[in-house]
């Protein structure tokens, strides 16, 4: 991750863009937390992006834990593997995916952060909607906690944009 920051800083700081001249970049991670949400088949969480900066999303992270056990899933629980997610940017009204995709493929449930093929610039004050779809009931009686992370760089601009 530090190499991303240094590389992006070299490319972007001082660059004039349609959003203003870039003055600095900072690593940051937003999250979407689902508290017992998996007990129902579809649930949605909204992440509020801060007003002080745009956000350049680079990675999607994901993890889950059984509420009862409070231990990481180590492969003995099958059902969460069916979890599918979709993301929608409410500022541009664009989804990142054409339909829900299994979380293993696009969120890090597979063991590593999901590296997006291209970044996504999320404007300040955007609400990002994360939807989890579970086609089958889960086995844990108290459900699961799901957490998704959106890692990237906060982008600060000079001028009136951030005033």
């Amino acid at each position: 991750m530090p190499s991303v920051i240094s590389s992006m800083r070299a490319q972007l700081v001082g660059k004039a863009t349609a959003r203003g001249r870039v003055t600095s970049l900072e690593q940051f991670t937003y999250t979407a937390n689902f508290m017992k949400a998996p007990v129902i088949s579809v649930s949605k969480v909204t992440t509020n992006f801060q007003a002080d900066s745009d956000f350049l999303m680079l990675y999607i992270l994901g993890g889950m834990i059984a509420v009862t056990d409070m231990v990481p899933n180590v492969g003995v629980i099958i059902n969460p593997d069916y979890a599918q997610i979709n993301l929608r940017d409410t500022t541009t009204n664009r989804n990142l995916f054409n339909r829900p995709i299994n979380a293993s493929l696009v969120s890090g449930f597979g063991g590593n952060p999901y590296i997006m093929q291209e970044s996504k610039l999320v404007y300040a004050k955007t609400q990002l909607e994360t939807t989890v779809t579970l086609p089958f009931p889960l086995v844990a009686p108290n459900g699961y906690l799901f957490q998704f992370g959106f890692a990237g760089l906060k982008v600060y601009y000079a001028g009136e944009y951030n005033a």
Partner: protein
Amino acid sequence: MPKILEKFGWPQDVLVNYNTDGQNIDPINKKIGRESYTYASSMITMPGAAGVDYSEAFLVEPACQFWMANFGCFSINAGGGPAVPIGRITLTDNATGFRVFNNVSAYAIGFGAGYSDTNNASTRSSVPRPYNFRNGNTFTLRYVVDVNVNAAPCQVQFTFEGWRDYSYD
């Protein structure tokens, strides 16, 4: 670091002028916005050893072009344990008839390429050069499994990872 980001630098809605890798997608110097996008197939269900012959078409919206850079595979065995019905993939650009994949083993381009755990198999592989699906056209996935060697019901989903280019006046 996302390799495409590394290659092209500042990517997307901050407006830039460029042609991409020699392909003149911006012939009159319109400005281009670029952002991540991924297509996924429906979850394909195989009811056991019989396999499947599955086709699905995907529309590239008129407002943008789609560049495919990665191909992802996910499979899960309904009874637990990994399920990797190998099968063959054909991916056709319906605008040109060009086959990005021509009856290629799904193991060669996805299932065999990386991670799997005890419950599922989820892997991806990169396309040697990103492929450009033009706006307003469709592309079609065909997935043929003659015999599901697991002989148990399983589900499979494929993804086409990449980005969209939008043009601005």
